[in-house]
């Protein structure tokens, strides 16, 4: 098992956002977390990547407890996050943004290799490499955020609503890319409102509601589940 | 309508009671000149800080030039009451101070309020310094020596009444259409404008209202202290008003009252610590901010209405 989250509880001050969530991810899988607005998905991701400290519970990554570790340390361990709302660095060029992604990698050769890989995957970023990232369009920014996360050569990548605000044509593209990244050996934890798409590329999925896991199963099982269909697939 | 009237009456009673309480304490001798001095200073600081809180806390405009407007009021009173040594003269001078400071606030505000954040702070600070330097070099203002032997036409009752009046005006403004417009400017200028709010006009309104009350405080300061000099109205004075606002809670008028009182008392108590006073004051300031980052009261406001409602709810539960 690559990542195991056990009875995770996270609070914002007095607000209890995550109320004892457990789930796990195996090496090489794509796992989706779906759930309504405010279910606590983003909060879970932020806790895994060390931006938030849990109230209680455990996060075990490659047999190591990481719930008390700070974000930079978690990144160093091989977990990268593509945050909700992209959070690219405005004012830095596309190139510099990508360089920031490889911040912890000392080996120049590897950095160069990552650049090549990212540019191959997102040719548009290569075209725009000297442009201020702030002036990119939404879709381009999303690609940049993914590219930046990949620059760290993560073993596990956390994606928070990568399709939000994207044109339909880009949505398909983004999901293709996720599959491709996964095929190249990166484990993926995916959060999506577009549950249909997400589950269709996922090995397994978890359905969250207001801070708890409600349902779990393989991607196909969940897609077929009536409750899920009703609540999250608009059917 | 009736209930609204009730709350207003209660407020009025509180204010009158406060006045008589103080009067009695002075007659009995519990409050001597020293305490009276402290209370008056606190009162003047309350007027200054509520005005600044309107600008910073409610309109979200970072002004660092409040002392400049205070100076205008102070000098108006000092100069006018030199010749018109009567209460009427004093009120005339207050009025003159308000008018001049409104004009100055318009001159300063119309160009600078287009700036944002720290740039605005620096520009207003610069404007206040310009006012101070001009005063420092004028004949009628007595130059660097300032003006002394100003007749004391404002004693504590005047200050007390002015505190009440300016607070009522500012609080009522905040709870009106204008106040809401001003707050929306603080929250999000672009959204406010999209809702049909002329953000520039409302920023300016808050700035001018704040400046006018600062002038009133300046008049009281001059008349009560009987001496003023340009050095009283420097950057440090603006900063000390800012400290009251932030310490009390940006956006809480009640907080401003509390902070002005706490700091006023602290300042007087620290007189016993000699040369260490400012060191202790500095440490206290840092500690309060670290442990209460949003100020003593945050954005909480004292409200009679709320107390009443809680009372009623309790009664209902008990029945």
């Amino acid at each position, binding site marked *: 098992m690559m990542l195991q989250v056990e009875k995770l509880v996270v609070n914002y001050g007095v607000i209890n956002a995550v109320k004892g969530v457990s789930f796990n991810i195996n090496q090489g899988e794509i796992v989706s977390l779906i759930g309504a607005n405010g279910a606590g998905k983003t909060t879970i991701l932020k806790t895994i990547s060390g931006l938030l400290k849990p109230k209680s519970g455990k996060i075990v990554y490659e047999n190591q407890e990481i719930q008390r570790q700070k974000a930079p340390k978690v990144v160093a361990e091989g977990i990268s996050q593509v945050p909700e709302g992209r959070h690219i660095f405005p004012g830095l060029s596309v190139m510099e943004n990508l360089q920031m992604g490889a911040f912890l990698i000392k080996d120049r050769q590897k950095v160069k290799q990552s650049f090549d890989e990212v540019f191959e995957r997102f040719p548009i970023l290569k075209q725009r490499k000297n442009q201020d990232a702030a002036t990119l369009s939404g879709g381009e920014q999303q690609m940049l955020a993914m590219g930046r996360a990949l620059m760290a050569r993560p073993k596990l990548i956390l994606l928070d609503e990568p399709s939000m605000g*994207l044109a339909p044509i880009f949505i398909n593209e983004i999901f293709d890319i996720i599959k491709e990244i996964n095929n190249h050996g990166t484990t993926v934890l995916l959060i999506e409102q577009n549950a249909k798409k997400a589950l269709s590329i996922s090995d397994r999925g978890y359905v969250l509601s207001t801070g708890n896991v409600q349902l779990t199963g393989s991607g196909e099982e969940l897609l077929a589940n009536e409750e899920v269909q009703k609540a999250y697939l608009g059917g | 309508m009736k209930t609204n009237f009730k709350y207003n009456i209660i407020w009025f009673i509180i204010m009158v009671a406060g006045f008589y309480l103080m009067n009695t304490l002075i007659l009995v001798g519990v409050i001597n000149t020293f305490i009276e001095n402290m209370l008056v200073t606190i009162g003047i600081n309350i007027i200054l800080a509520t005005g600044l809180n309107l600008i910073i806390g409610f309109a979200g405009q970072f002004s660092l030039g409040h002392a400049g407007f205070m100076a205008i009021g102070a000098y108006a009173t000092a100069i006018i009451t030199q010749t018109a040594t009567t209460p009427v003269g004093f009120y005339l001078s207050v009025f003159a101070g308000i008018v001049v400071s409104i004009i100055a606030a318009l001159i300063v505000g119309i160009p600078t309020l287009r700036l944002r954040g720290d740039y605005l702070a620096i520009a207003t600070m610069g404007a206040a310094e310009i006012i101070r330097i001009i005063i420092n070099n004028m004949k009628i203002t007595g130059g660097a020596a300032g003006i002394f032997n100003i007749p004391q036409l404002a004693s504590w009752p005047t200050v007390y009444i002015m505190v009440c009046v300016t607070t009522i005006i500012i609080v009522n403004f905040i709870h009106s259409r204008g106040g809401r417009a001003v707050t929306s400017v603080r929250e999000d200028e672009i959204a406010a404008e999209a809702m049909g709010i002329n953000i520039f006009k409302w920023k300016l309104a808050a700035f001018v209202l704040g400046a006018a009350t600062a002038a009133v405080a300046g008049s009281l300061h001059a008349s009560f202290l009987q001496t003023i000099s340009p050095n009283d109205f420097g950057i440090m004075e603006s900063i000390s008003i800012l400290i009251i606002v932030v310490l009390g809670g940006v956006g809480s008028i009640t907080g401003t009252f509390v902070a002005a009182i706490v700091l006023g008392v602290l300042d007087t108590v620290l007189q016993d610590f000699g040369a260490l006073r400012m060191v202790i004051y500095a440490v206290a300031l840092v500690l309060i901010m670290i442990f209460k980052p949003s100020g003593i009261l945050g954005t909480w406001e004292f409200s009679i209405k709320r107390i009443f409602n809680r009372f009623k709810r309790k009664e209902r539960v008990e029945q």
Partner: protein
Amino acid sequence: MTSLLQVDNLVKNFGGLTAVSNVSMHLDNNELVALIGPNGAGKTTLFNLLTGVIPVSSGSIVLKGDDGTFALNGKPAYRIAKLGLSRTFQNIRLFKNLSVLDNVLIAMTSRSKEGFIASIFRLPSYYKTEKQLVEEATKLLTIFELEDDMDVLAKNLPYGTQRRLEIVRALATKPQILFLDEPAAGMNPEETANLTQLILKVQHRFHITVLLIEHDMSLVMNLAERIYVLDHGSLLAEGTPDEIKANHKVIKAYLGEGE
């Protein structure tokens, strides 16, 4: 040929970039129109031009409203809002630290007649207008099922609810035209379906014209009477949902194959 809003040859340049180039379009009374297009096509920029958030480079925008005909280009945003154009934002821009009720009351300030003197001295007229405003705001909030959250700070609302509040706030200015920028972004299908119903209801009830940007095709195709497609700043196509769905250029640039 008296459109409510007539846009001709609108252009917006950012430095070297032409974000909106020569766009002409119109909105009629009580219409529900969608604006779609790939990311970076210039949709939000077009909204910004129409509502005066940013100045136009060239072109004209004319409103033929109830109170007369106005050229909107060059007017500041607040004047345009007062003339009856109201909007929501792609990245929600609520007054975060204010209550839900205050958010709505603020949107009503520009219409309110409350006087400065009356409010400073708490004259009876102050209480009267205040009461009216609160009543009106409550009514609106009730339509959107927000009446129980009136005292909640906007920033503490769940995302979807914030989007709903933004719509209420925009309606509180009593607009003739309502612009919605990706109202369903970040919502799941169920929430999106609810929102679709709500928008329809609002349009009927207040007799307003709606122009909306959305990437969620289920919402667009269900709601829109007409659709404009923008690509690289220019109009690519215009038509009914069925026409647009079948348009090859649109499929290639925006919808993509599949589904």
